[in-house]
C-alpha cells in the first residue's frame, strides 16, 4: 500500500517538475546549467550535506521526541481550542467534495512539488545564493520545528472534534494515512511544518520574483493553499499555521544572514574532485 502511494507521488511530482522546467526555467538556463553544474554543485554541497544529516537525524529523533515530550513538554491542545475553537469549524462549513479533493491533492502532491521544484529551479541559476539560502532555510525549519515539537504537545482539530472536523482526507482517501504516518506523529501539530516549509518557499519565491516571475505567481498561491489545506483537512489549528508562518519568516531571515558568512568553499577553497575531472 505504502509503496503504491509513494510511487504515485513520485510520478506526479516528476511530471509537475518537468512541466515546471519547461515553463518556468526555460531552455537557456538549462543550457548554462549543463555547462556549470559541477561548480554549482560544489557550492551547494556543504549545506546539502548538513540538510541530509539533519533529515536523517530528524527521522531518528522523531521516534524519541514523543516520549520526551510526554515527560517534559507542555500539553497545549485545550488552550489552543479555548482560544480559537470555532475557526476550523467555520472553515470546514465550506466543505464540498471538489474542495476536499483539491486540498487533499495540494496537501500531498502540491506540497511535495512546492518543496522539490525550487531546488531544481534555483540550481538552474548561475548565482547559487538562492539555492543555498533555500537549503539553509529548509534545514533551519527542521531543526527549529523539532525543538518546538519537543516542547509542545498538541493534538490537531480532527483529534479534538472528530464528529465536526471530519478528518476529510484520511476517510475519503484512507491510503494517504500510510504516507503521512511515516512522517508525522499526531502530537506534533504545533507549529505546522507543512505551512512553514511552504511559506519558506513562498517567501523566497517572492524575493526571487525578478528572476522567476512565473514561479512567484505559482508558488505564492500554492503556499497559501497548502496552509489553508492543513486547516481545511482538520490537521492543524489556525494557531499552528500562524506559528508556521512565523517560523518560516525567521528561517528565511536567518538563512539570509548565515549564507555567505560561513561559506566553507570560499574560506578553505576545498578542492572538489568533480572540478578536477573537468
Amino acid at each position: 500500500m505504502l509503496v503504491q502511494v509513494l510511487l504515485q507521488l513520485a510520478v506526479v511530482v516528476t511530471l509537475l517538475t518537468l512541466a515546471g522546467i519547461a515553463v518556468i526555467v526555460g531552455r537557456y538556463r538549462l543550457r548554462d546549467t549543463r555547462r556549470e553544474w559541477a561548480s554549482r554543485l560544489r557550492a551547494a554541497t556543504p549545506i546539502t550535506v548538513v540538510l541530509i544529516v539533519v533529515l536523517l537525524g530528524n527521522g531518528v529523533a522523531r521516534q524519541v521526541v514523543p516520549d520526551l515530550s510526554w515527560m517534559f513538554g507542555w500539553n497545549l491542545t485545550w488552550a489552543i481550542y479555548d482560544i480559537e475553537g470555532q475557526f476550523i469549524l467555520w472553515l470546514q462549513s465550506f466543505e464540498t467534495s471538489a474542495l476536499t479533493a483539491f486540498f487533499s491533492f495540494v496537501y500531498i502532491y502540491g506540497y511535495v512539488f512546492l518543496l522539490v521544484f525550487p531546488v531544481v529551479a534555483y540550481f538552474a541559476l548561475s548565482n547559487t545564493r538562492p539555492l543555498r539560502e533555500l537549503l539553509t532555510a529548509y534545514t533551519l525549519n527542521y531543526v527549529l520545528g523539532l525543538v518546538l515539537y519537543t516542547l509542545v504537545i498538541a493534538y490537531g482539530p480532527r483529534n479534538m472534534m472528530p464528529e465536526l472536523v471530519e478528518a476529510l482526507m484520511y476517510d475519503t482517501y484512507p491510503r494517504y494515512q500510510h504516507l503521512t504516518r511515516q512522517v508525522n506523529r499526531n502530537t506534533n501539530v504545533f507549529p505546522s511544518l507543512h505551512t512553514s516549509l511552504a511559506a519558506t518557499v513562498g517567501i523566497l519565491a517572492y524575493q526571487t520574483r525578478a528572476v522567476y516571475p512565473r514561479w512567484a505567481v505559482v508558488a505564492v498561491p500554492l503556499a497559501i493553499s497548502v496552509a489553508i489545506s492543513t486547516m481545511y483537512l482538520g490537521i492543524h489549528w489556525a494557531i499552528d499555521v500562524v506559528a508556521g508562518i512565523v517560523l518560516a519568516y525567521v528561517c528565511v531571515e536567518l538563512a539570509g544572514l548565515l549564507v555567505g558568512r560561513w561559506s566553507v568553499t570560499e574560506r578553505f577553497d576545498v578542492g572538489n574532485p568533480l572540478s578536477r575531472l573537468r
Partner: protein
Amino acid sequence: MTDEKTASPGRPRSRRAVLAGTAGLAVATSGCVRQVRTVVNRDAVDQLSVTIVTLPADGDREGIRLAREVAAVLEAVGVDVSVDMRSNEEFLRAILINHEFDLYVGRHPGGTDPDFLYEALHSVYAEESGWQNPFGYANLQLDDLLEAQRLADGEEREAVMAELLEELAREQPFVPICVPEEHRFVRTDRFDGWGEAHPATRLGYLELEAGDDVDRLRTAHTDARISENLNPLTAEYRDHEPFLELVYDSLATERDSEIEPWLAEDWTYDDGTLRVRLREDCRFHDDEPLDADDVEFSYRLLQDTELEDGESPSPPPRYRGLAAAVDAIDVDGELDLEFELDAGEAVAERVLTAPILPEHIWTERAAPATVRGVSVAQGATEAVTVDNVPPVGSGPFRFGSRTEREHVTLERFDDHFTRREDVDLPEASVEELRIQIDPRSTSAIELVSTDSADITSAILETYVLDDLEPAPETAPLESPSWTFYHLGFNTRRAPFANARFRRAVARLLDKDWLVEDVFHGYAAPTATPVTEEWTPEELAWNGEDPATPFFGSDGELDVEAAREAFEDAGFSYDDGALRVRR
C-alpha cells in the same frame, strides 16, 4: 470594633489615662484582630475547576466525544472545565499509575464475571497503582459485599451481587455510561470459524480453520502499543486484545464466560481448596520445562513483584484481584498443585486464567527498576516496567519479530500441547500470525477488502459501521461485549469524595442520547458495569436510567433542575459559578 468610641481623641491626657488608653487599645486591637482573623481565615470558596482526562480521536474517537459532552454539561451547571487529551499509554499512566486526574472518560476492560468489581473498587487497593481501584474509592459496606460475593456460589452469589450493584448505583464511584458493540471485519474466503469464540480471546484465533494453502493469518490492528511492549503485567500497554494470551498460557481458559481446562489437565474444588493437575511435558518457547514451580512462582509474582513476603507488597497493575484470592499454594511434585483460596468455586476457577510466566526469566525481574540519576517510585520493579521483548511463554504461538509501530509477527509453537493427538483442544491452524499495525479503522478495513489482511483485530470505531459493505469474500463480525464506557471520579479529591456530588453529576448525562449521537446507536446505555445476565431487574435499562435519571430529555439538560440538585446536595452558586471548597 465598638471599643473605639471610648477613646476620645484630641485632648491632653494624664499618664495614667495614657496607660489605661494603651491597655484599652490593646484590648480593642485584640478583639479587632480576632474578628479580622475569623473573617480572613475562612478560605475563599472558589469556582470548581476540573480537568477531564481522555484519549484523542486517534486513540478513542467515542471517548473524546463523550468527554466533550461531559465538559459541556458541567460547564452548563457552572463548573470550569478543561479536557486533557493523552496518548493511549499516557492516559492509562495518568489514571492508573499516578492517579493524576479529577475526572476521566474511557473504556473499562470490565469482565464477563462481575468479580472484576472486587479489584476495581475494594478499598484496600485505593493506594495501589493499576486497574485495582483507580478511583481511590473506600466504602466499608461495599467491601463487605465484594468479599461476600467471592465466597458465595449460585443463587446466593446472585443475591449478594444484586445488593452490591444497588449500593454501587446509589454511590456512583464511577458512572457507567454504555456498553459499546464490538464489530470487526473479516475475510471469509481464507478462514472459516470466525465468531466460534470471542476474537478478543485466544480461542477466537485458535478456532479458525485455514483454507487450503493458507499458512498465514494476517490481522490489521489499529493500536500500535502491542508492537511497543509485550509485557502481560504492564497496564498502560494492554488492551482488549488476544495476542499475549496466544504467547502465554494460563491454567484455564474462558469460553462464553465458562472456564475450561487449558494448561491444567483438570481440577477439583472442595471448600476453598483447588487441586490442579498440569499437563505433562509442557515446555516454554526456549525449551525449558514448565512445571508446578513455575505456576507457583507466577502467582507469587502476581501478588508481589518484589517476591518478598514483606509487609508492603508491590503488586502488578493487572491481575491483582485474581491473585488476591490465593491464600497459599502447595506444590506437590512436578505436576500437582494445591491452591488455598479465599473464594467460592465460581471465582476460584477464574483465578486459573492468569498468565503462567517462566520462573527462570522473571526471577531477576523482581528487582526495582533503575534509571540512572532518577529516583524510581517504590514498587516499580523490573517486572512491571520491562518491555518484555522477546516474550518467552509456553503458548501456541511464539514470538517471531517486530518493528515498532509497524508489525508484530508470531510463529506457531509446534511443541504446544494443543498439537498432541490425545488433546482435544483447538490448535493453531497457521504457521504464522502477523499483526500489522494500521492506525485507522477505515484503512484497516481497506486492508481486509484488498486481501492484505484477514481481520481488523481491534474493535472498529462505530462511525465506519454504516458504510461496511459485505462482499462475497468479506463479512462484518459482531461479538458479545463486556467492556463499558464510564466516567471515573478521583474520589481522593474534593468534591468527588462526596456521593451526593457524584450522583448529581451522573444525572447530567443523557446516556440514551449519547448512545445515539456518539455511537450511532451501536452501544447500549447502562446503569450497571456488569453484563446483562448479572444485572438485577431493578437496574435494567427501561428507556431511562433506573438509578440516576437524566435532568432533562433528548440531550437537552434542564439546567435549572440540575443546579438545584447541586444546591440540594449542599453546594452553592455565586454569579452562576458552582463554588466548591477544595
